Protein backbone atom coordinates (compact mmCIF):
# COMPACT_ATOMS: atom_id res chain seq x y z
CA UNK A 1 0.00 0.00 0.00
CA UNK A 2 1.46 3.31 -1.03
CA UNK A 3 0.64 6.09 1.38
CA UNK A 4 -0.09 9.56 0.02
CA UNK A 5 3.20 11.45 -0.14
CA UNK A 6 3.57 14.25 2.31
CA UNK A 7 6.25 16.91 2.50
CA UNK A 8 9.22 16.48 4.85
CA UNK A 9 9.03 18.44 8.11
CA UNK A 10 11.63 20.99 6.92
CA UNK A 11 13.69 21.79 3.82
CA UNK A 12 16.76 20.30 5.47
CA UNK A 13 18.69 18.45 2.75
CA UNK A 14 19.19 15.46 5.03
CA UNK A 15 15.56 14.46 4.46
CA UNK A 16 16.61 13.42 0.96
CA UNK A 17 18.53 10.50 2.46
CA UNK A 18 15.46 9.51 4.45
CA UNK A 19 13.18 9.87 1.43
CA UNK A 20 15.53 7.84 -0.74
CA UNK A 21 15.51 5.01 1.80
CA UNK A 22 11.73 4.93 1.87
CA UNK A 23 11.50 5.09 -1.90
CA UNK A 24 13.99 2.26 -2.29
CA UNK A 25 11.67 0.08 -0.22
CA UNK A 26 8.58 1.11 -2.14
CA UNK A 27 7.17 2.96 0.92
CA UNK A 28 6.36 -0.39 2.51
CA UNK A 29 5.63 -0.51 6.22
CA UNK A 30 8.43 -3.03 6.63
CA UNK A 31 10.95 -0.33 5.69
CA UNK A 32 10.40 1.27 9.10
CA UNK A 33 13.59 0.08 10.78
CA UNK A 34 15.71 0.80 7.73
CA UNK A 35 14.25 4.32 7.54
CA UNK A 36 14.79 4.94 11.24
CA UNK A 37 18.42 3.90 10.77
CA UNK A 38 18.83 6.34 7.87
CA UNK A 39 17.27 9.12 9.93
CA UNK A 40 19.32 8.34 13.01
CA UNK A 41 22.49 8.36 10.94
CA UNK A 42 21.65 11.62 9.17
CA UNK A 43 20.36 13.57 12.14
CA UNK A 44 21.99 11.79 15.07
CA UNK A 45 18.64 11.21 16.75
CA UNK A 46 14.93 10.77 16.02
CA UNK A 47 12.70 13.66 17.04
CA UNK A 48 8.94 13.80 17.08
CA UNK A 49 8.72 15.47 13.67
CA UNK A 50 10.84 12.73 12.14
CA UNK A 51 8.73 9.95 13.67
CA UNK A 52 5.51 11.60 12.55
CA UNK A 53 6.81 12.09 9.04
CA UNK A 54 8.12 8.53 8.69
CA UNK A 55 5.00 6.96 10.21
CA UNK A 56 2.70 8.95 7.92
CA UNK A 57 4.74 8.22 4.80
CA UNK A 58 5.06 4.50 5.45
CA UNK A 59 1.50 4.20 6.69
CA UNK A 60 2.36 2.78 10.10
CA UNK A 61 0.77 3.80 13.38
CA UNK A 62 2.51 6.51 15.41
CA UNK A 63 2.62 4.29 18.47
CA UNK A 64 4.17 1.50 16.40
CA UNK A 65 6.94 3.77 15.10
CA UNK A 66 7.52 5.03 18.63
CA UNK A 67 7.61 1.48 19.94
CA UNK A 68 10.24 0.41 17.42
CA UNK A 69 12.30 3.56 17.99
CA UNK A 70 12.39 2.94 21.74
CA UNK A 71 12.81 -0.84 21.58
CA UNK A 72 16.23 -0.76 19.93
CA UNK A 73 19.05 0.81 21.87
CA UNK A 74 20.68 2.09 18.69
CA UNK A 75 17.95 4.65 18.23
CA UNK A 76 17.85 7.73 20.41
CA UNK A 77 15.03 10.25 20.67
CA UNK A 78 17.28 12.99 22.04
CA UNK A 79 20.52 14.41 20.69
CA UNK A 80 23.48 12.72 22.30
CA UNK A 81 25.29 15.01 24.70
CA UNK A 82 28.66 13.33 24.54
CA UNK A 83 31.00 13.80 21.60
CA UNK A 84 32.26 10.25 21.77
CA UNK A 85 30.37 7.04 22.25
CA UNK A 86 31.69 3.79 23.50
CA UNK A 87 29.35 0.81 23.19
CA UNK A 88 30.44 -2.30 25.04
CA UNK A 89 28.95 -5.55 23.80
CA UNK A 90 27.49 -7.58 26.64
CA UNK A 91 26.33 -10.52 24.55
CA UNK A 92 27.09 -14.04 25.73
CA UNK A 93 30.42 -14.45 23.96
CA UNK A 94 31.70 -11.01 25.03
CA UNK A 95 30.42 -11.55 28.54
CA UNK A 96 32.40 -14.75 28.86
CA UNK A 97 35.49 -13.10 27.39
CA UNK A 98 35.42 -10.31 29.96
CA UNK A 99 33.00 -7.56 28.86
CA UNK A 100 32.04 -6.83 32.49
CA UNK A 101 35.67 -6.00 33.24
CA UNK A 102 35.77 -3.59 30.26
CA UNK A 103 32.60 -1.84 31.43
CA UNK A 104 33.96 -1.69 34.94
CA UNK A 105 37.22 -0.13 33.80
CA UNK A 106 35.42 2.40 31.59
CA UNK A 107 33.03 3.46 34.32
CA UNK A 108 35.88 3.78 36.82
CA UNK A 109 37.79 5.96 34.39
CA UNK A 110 34.90 8.17 33.21
CA UNK A 111 32.39 8.36 36.04
CA UNK A 112 34.79 9.57 38.71
CA UNK A 113 36.60 12.03 36.46
CA UNK A 114 35.89 15.53 37.81
CA UNK A 115 36.47 17.05 34.34
CA UNK A 116 33.35 15.25 33.10
CA UNK A 117 34.84 13.75 29.95
CA UNK A 118 32.73 13.89 26.77
CA UNK A 119 32.35 10.14 26.45
CA UNK A 120 29.15 8.22 26.89
CA UNK A 121 29.42 4.57 27.82
CA UNK A 122 26.69 2.26 26.65
CA UNK A 123 26.07 -1.47 26.65
CA UNK A 124 24.63 -3.40 23.72
CA UNK A 125 23.15 -6.89 23.72
CA UNK A 126 25.06 -8.43 20.86
CA UNK A 127 26.95 -6.79 18.02
CA UNK A 128 27.00 -10.01 16.00
CA UNK A 129 30.79 -9.86 16.12
CA UNK A 130 31.17 -12.73 18.51
CA UNK A 131 34.41 -13.83 16.84
CA UNK A 132 36.00 -10.59 18.08
CA UNK A 133 34.86 -11.01 21.69
CA UNK A 134 35.10 -8.99 23.78
CA UNK A 135 34.16 -6.21 21.36
CA UNK A 136 33.57 -2.48 21.83
CA UNK A 137 32.29 0.07 19.32
CA UNK A 138 34.31 3.28 19.55
CA UNK A 139 32.42 6.03 17.69
CA UNK A 140 30.86 3.54 15.29
CA UNK A 141 34.04 1.48 14.77
CA UNK A 142 34.06 -2.07 16.06
CA UNK A 143 37.25 -3.11 17.83
CA UNK A 144 37.68 -6.64 19.11
CA UNK A 145 39.86 -8.77 21.38
CA UNK A 146 40.07 -6.03 23.98
CA UNK A 147 41.41 -5.97 27.48
CA UNK A 148 40.54 -3.31 30.08
CA UNK A 149 43.95 -1.67 29.52
CA UNK A 150 43.58 -1.55 25.73
CA UNK A 151 40.08 -0.10 26.10
CA UNK A 152 41.23 2.67 28.44
CA UNK A 153 44.14 3.40 26.09
CA UNK A 154 41.66 4.19 23.29
CA UNK A 155 39.64 6.44 25.55
CA UNK A 156 42.73 8.28 26.72
CA UNK A 157 43.55 9.07 23.10
CA UNK A 158 40.17 10.80 22.73
CA UNK A 159 40.60 12.64 25.98
CA UNK A 160 44.06 13.92 25.10
CA UNK A 161 42.77 15.11 21.70
CA UNK A 162 40.09 17.09 23.50
CA UNK A 163 42.42 18.95 25.83
Amino acid at each position, binding site marked *: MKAARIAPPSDDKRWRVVDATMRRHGYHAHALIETLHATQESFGFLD*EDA*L*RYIAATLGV*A*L*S*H*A*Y*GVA*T*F*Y*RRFTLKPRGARHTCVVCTGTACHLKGAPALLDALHRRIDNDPTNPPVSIMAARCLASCGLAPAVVFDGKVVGNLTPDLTIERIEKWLSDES
Partner: protein
Amino acid sequence: MPSSVRVKTLRIDDLDVAGDEQQTIFDVAIEHDIPIPTLCHLDGLGAVGACRMCLVEVTNANQTRLQPACATPIEEGMQIVTNSPRLQEYRRMILELLFAEGNHVCAVCVSNGHCELQGLAQSVGMTHVRFPYHYPQRSVDASHRRFVVDHNRCVLCTRCVRVCDEIEGAHTWDLMGASSQTQVVTDLNQPWAEAETCTGCGKCIHVCPTGALFEKGHSVAEMHKRRQFLPYLRAMREREL
Protein backbone atom coordinates in the same frame (compact mmCIF):
# COMPACT_ATOMS: atom_id res chain seq x y z
CA MET B 1 -19.55 -28.38 4.76
CA PRO B 2 -16.62 -27.58 2.50
CA SER B 3 -14.43 -30.62 1.91
CA SER B 4 -11.25 -28.55 2.34
CA VAL B 5 -11.54 -28.61 6.13
CA ARG B 6 -9.07 -31.15 7.40
CA VAL B 7 -9.86 -32.84 10.67
CA LYS B 8 -7.07 -33.77 13.06
CA THR B 9 -7.37 -36.11 15.98
CA LEU B 10 -5.47 -35.72 19.20
CA ARG B 11 -5.63 -36.56 22.87
CA ILE B 12 -6.12 -33.99 25.60
CA ASP B 13 -5.93 -35.25 29.20
CA ASP B 14 -6.97 -38.84 28.33
CA LEU B 15 -9.81 -37.63 26.17
CA ASP B 16 -9.77 -38.38 22.46
CA VAL B 17 -10.81 -35.27 20.57
CA ALA B 18 -10.90 -34.00 17.01
CA GLY B 19 -10.63 -30.53 15.60
CA ASP B 20 -10.28 -28.52 12.43
CA GLU B 21 -6.62 -28.11 11.45
CA GLN B 22 -6.81 -24.34 11.84
CA GLN B 23 -7.83 -24.56 15.47
CA THR B 24 -5.41 -24.13 18.31
CA ILE B 25 -5.01 -26.49 21.24
CA PHE B 26 -6.86 -23.93 23.34
CA ASP B 27 -9.85 -23.75 20.95
CA VAL B 28 -10.26 -27.52 20.96
CA ALA B 29 -9.85 -27.78 24.74
CA ILE B 30 -12.54 -25.14 25.32
CA GLU B 31 -14.94 -26.94 22.99
CA HIS B 32 -14.56 -30.02 25.20
CA ASP B 33 -14.87 -28.12 28.48
CA ILE B 34 -11.24 -28.67 29.40
CA PRO B 35 -10.15 -25.57 31.31
CA ILE B 36 -6.80 -23.95 30.52
CA PRO B 37 -5.92 -20.75 32.37
CA THR B 38 -5.18 -17.72 30.18
CA LEU B 39 -4.27 -14.11 30.68
CA CYS B 40 -3.22 -12.45 27.42
CA HIS B 41 -5.55 -14.56 25.29
CA LEU B 42 -9.02 -13.24 24.62
CA ASP B 43 -11.59 -14.80 22.32
CA GLY B 44 -11.93 -12.55 19.28
CA LEU B 45 -8.39 -11.15 19.37
CA GLY B 46 -5.27 -12.46 17.67
CA ALA B 47 -3.04 -14.72 19.78
CA VAL B 48 0.39 -13.53 20.92
CA GLY B 49 1.30 -16.22 23.45
CA ALA B 50 2.89 -13.55 25.64
CA CYS B 51 1.85 -14.46 29.16
CA ARG B 52 2.63 -18.21 29.06
CA MET B 53 -0.20 -18.98 31.49
CA CYS B 54 -1.72 -21.42 29.00
CA LEU B 55 1.45 -23.54 28.70
CA VAL B 56 0.60 -27.20 28.22
CA GLU B 57 2.78 -30.30 27.86
CA VAL B 58 2.64 -31.43 24.26
CA THR B 59 4.01 -34.84 23.29
CA ASN B 60 4.40 -35.37 19.58
CA ALA B 61 6.69 -37.91 17.92
CA ASN B 62 8.10 -38.95 21.33
CA GLN B 63 9.16 -35.43 22.20
CA THR B 64 7.55 -33.51 25.05
CA ARG B 65 7.57 -29.74 24.85
CA LEU B 66 5.92 -26.91 26.72
CA GLN B 67 3.86 -24.86 24.32
CA PRO B 68 1.31 -22.07 24.68
CA ALA B 69 -2.11 -23.61 23.98
CA CYS B 70 -3.50 -20.33 22.61
CA ALA B 71 -0.90 -20.03 19.86
CA THR B 72 -0.18 -23.65 18.94
CA PRO B 73 -2.18 -25.19 16.08
CA ILE B 74 -3.31 -28.76 16.63
CA GLU B 75 -1.46 -31.60 14.94
CA GLU B 76 -2.39 -35.19 14.25
CA GLY B 77 -1.52 -37.50 17.13
CA MET B 78 -0.63 -34.85 19.71
CA GLN B 79 -0.78 -35.97 23.33
CA ILE B 80 -1.56 -33.03 25.55
CA VAL B 81 -1.46 -32.64 29.32
CA THR B 82 -3.16 -29.46 30.48
CA ASN B 83 -2.58 -29.82 34.18
CA SER B 84 0.40 -31.41 35.92
CA PRO B 85 2.39 -30.52 39.03
CA ARG B 86 5.05 -29.06 36.76
CA LEU B 87 2.57 -26.86 34.88
CA GLN B 88 0.94 -25.75 38.13
CA GLU B 89 4.33 -24.77 39.49
CA TYR B 90 5.18 -22.79 36.34
CA ARG B 91 1.84 -21.03 36.26
CA ARG B 92 2.16 -20.03 39.88
CA MET B 93 5.67 -18.78 39.25
CA ILE B 94 4.57 -16.70 36.27
CA LEU B 95 1.89 -15.05 38.38
CA GLU B 96 4.28 -14.38 41.23
CA LEU B 97 6.69 -12.75 38.80
CA LEU B 98 3.88 -10.57 37.44
CA PHE B 99 2.96 -9.47 40.95
CA ALA B 100 6.61 -8.82 41.83
CA GLU B 101 7.33 -6.73 38.75
CA GLY B 102 4.34 -4.36 38.97
CA ASN B 103 2.60 -2.53 41.79
CA HIS B 104 -0.55 -4.59 42.28
CA VAL B 105 -2.43 -3.45 45.35
CA CYS B 106 -5.82 -5.14 45.20
CA ALA B 107 -7.23 -3.34 48.23
CA VAL B 108 -7.30 0.03 46.46
CA CYS B 109 -7.92 -1.18 42.89
CA VAL B 110 -11.01 -0.41 40.82
CA SER B 111 -10.99 -3.99 39.55
CA ASN B 112 -10.76 -5.68 42.96
CA GLY B 113 -13.05 -8.70 42.93
CA HIS B 114 -13.29 -8.95 39.14
CA CYS B 115 -9.65 -8.79 38.12
CA GLU B 116 -8.29 -11.60 35.98
CA LEU B 117 -4.84 -11.44 37.56
CA GLN B 118 -6.37 -11.69 41.01
CA GLY B 119 -8.70 -14.48 39.88
CA LEU B 120 -5.83 -16.48 38.39
CA ALA B 121 -3.77 -16.07 41.55
CA GLN B 122 -6.66 -17.44 43.57
CA SER B 123 -7.35 -20.30 41.20
CA VAL B 124 -3.75 -21.56 41.14
CA GLY B 125 -3.52 -21.27 44.91
CA MET B 126 -0.90 -18.52 45.04
CA THR B 127 -0.55 -17.63 48.71
CA HIS B 128 2.55 -15.48 48.63
CA VAL B 129 5.23 -14.12 46.30
CA ARG B 130 8.61 -15.73 46.78
CA PHE B 131 10.48 -13.15 44.68
CA PRO B 132 11.53 -9.71 45.90
CA TYR B 133 9.08 -7.02 44.81
CA HIS B 134 10.50 -4.50 42.35
CA TYR B 135 8.28 -1.56 43.30
CA PRO B 136 8.94 0.14 39.94
CA GLN B 137 8.34 3.86 39.54
CA ARG B 138 5.41 3.98 37.14
CA SER B 139 3.00 6.74 36.21
CA VAL B 140 -0.74 7.22 35.93
CA ASP B 141 -2.24 9.10 32.98
CA ALA B 142 -5.66 10.52 33.75
CA SER B 143 -5.54 13.20 31.05
CA HIS B 144 -8.32 11.60 28.99
CA ARG B 145 -11.80 12.92 29.59
CA ARG B 146 -13.28 9.51 30.34
CA PHE B 147 -10.47 7.01 30.79
CA VAL B 148 -7.40 6.42 32.93
CA VAL B 149 -4.32 4.27 32.36
CA ASP B 150 -2.50 3.20 35.51
CA HIS B 151 0.79 1.64 34.44
CA ASN B 152 1.33 0.26 37.95
CA ARG B 153 -1.37 -2.33 37.30
CA CYS B 154 -0.39 -3.20 33.71
CA VAL B 155 0.77 -6.77 33.01
CA LEU B 156 1.67 -6.01 29.36
CA CYS B 157 -0.75 -8.59 27.97
CA THR B 158 -1.22 -6.30 24.91
CA ARG B 159 -4.96 -6.90 24.74
CA CYS B 160 -5.50 -3.13 24.47
CA VAL B 161 -2.92 -2.93 21.68
CA ARG B 162 -4.61 -5.74 19.74
CA VAL B 163 -8.20 -4.62 20.20
CA CYS B 164 -7.28 -1.08 19.15
CA ASP B 165 -5.45 -2.36 16.08
CA GLU B 166 -7.56 -5.36 15.03
CA ILE B 167 -11.07 -4.31 16.04
CA GLU B 168 -11.18 -0.53 16.26
CA GLY B 169 -8.51 -0.04 13.59
CA ALA B 170 -7.02 3.01 15.29
CA HIS B 171 -3.76 1.50 16.58
CA THR B 172 -3.42 4.16 19.22
CA TRP B 173 -1.77 1.76 21.66
CA ASP B 174 1.53 0.02 21.30
CA LEU B 175 4.43 -1.12 23.44
CA MET B 176 7.53 1.03 23.93
CA GLY B 177 10.95 0.17 25.26
CA ALA B 178 12.33 -3.24 26.12
CA SER B 179 12.59 -5.57 29.11
CA SER B 180 11.70 -3.95 32.45
CA GLN B 181 11.25 -0.55 30.81
CA THR B 182 8.43 -1.76 28.58
CA GLN B 183 5.09 -0.01 28.88
CA VAL B 184 2.02 0.66 26.78
CA VAL B 185 1.94 4.06 25.08
CA THR B 186 -0.64 6.11 23.22
CA ASP B 187 0.73 7.52 19.96
CA LEU B 188 4.15 9.12 20.56
CA ASN B 189 4.01 8.48 24.30
CA GLN B 190 1.81 11.54 24.64
CA PRO B 191 -0.78 12.17 27.33
CA TRP B 192 -3.80 10.11 26.29
CA ALA B 193 -5.94 13.22 25.86
CA GLU B 194 -3.51 14.49 23.20
CA ALA B 195 -3.32 11.23 21.24
CA GLU B 196 -5.01 12.24 18.01
CA THR B 197 -5.61 8.72 16.70
CA CYS B 198 -7.70 7.70 19.74
CA THR B 199 -11.38 7.53 18.89
CA GLY B 200 -12.43 7.28 22.53
CA CYS B 201 -14.30 4.03 21.82
CA GLY B 202 -13.32 2.47 25.17
CA LYS B 203 -12.69 -1.05 23.85
CA CYS B 204 -9.25 -1.10 25.44
CA ILE B 205 -10.85 -0.37 28.83
CA HIS B 206 -13.10 -3.38 28.59
CA VAL B 207 -10.54 -5.92 27.38
CA CYS B 208 -7.95 -4.99 30.03
CA PRO B 209 -7.67 -7.93 32.45
CA THR B 210 -6.68 -5.76 35.41
CA GLY B 211 -7.44 -2.27 36.68
CA ALA B 212 -4.72 -0.75 34.48
CA LEU B 213 -7.35 0.70 32.13
CA PHE B 214 -10.57 1.94 33.65
CA GLU B 215 -13.35 4.43 33.27
CA LYS B 216 -13.45 7.51 35.44
CA GLY B 217 -16.16 7.62 38.05
CA HIS B 218 -15.49 4.14 39.40
CA SER B 219 -14.23 3.61 42.91
CA VAL B 220 -12.57 0.57 44.47
CA ALA B 221 -13.98 -2.72 43.13
CA GLU B 222 -16.55 -0.90 40.98
CA MET B 223 -15.05 -1.39 37.53
CA HIS B 224 -16.83 -4.19 35.71
CA LYS B 225 -15.55 -5.03 32.24
CA ARG B 226 -18.01 -5.72 29.44
CA ARG B 227 -16.70 -7.81 26.56
CA GLN B 228 -19.81 -8.96 24.76
CA PHE B 229 -18.79 -7.02 21.66
CA LEU B 230 -15.78 -9.26 20.97
CA PRO B 231 -17.44 -12.65 20.34
CA TYR B 232 -20.18 -10.76 18.51
CA LEU B 233 -17.75 -9.07 16.14
CA ARG B 234 -15.89 -12.33 15.62
CA ALA B 235 -19.09 -14.18 14.75
CA MET B 236 -20.09 -11.44 12.30
CA ARG B 237 -16.71 -11.57 10.59
CA GLU B 238 -16.80 -15.34 10.30
CA ARG B 239 -20.25 -15.14 8.76
CA GLU B 240 -18.98 -12.71 6.15
CA LEU B 241 -16.18 -15.07 5.22
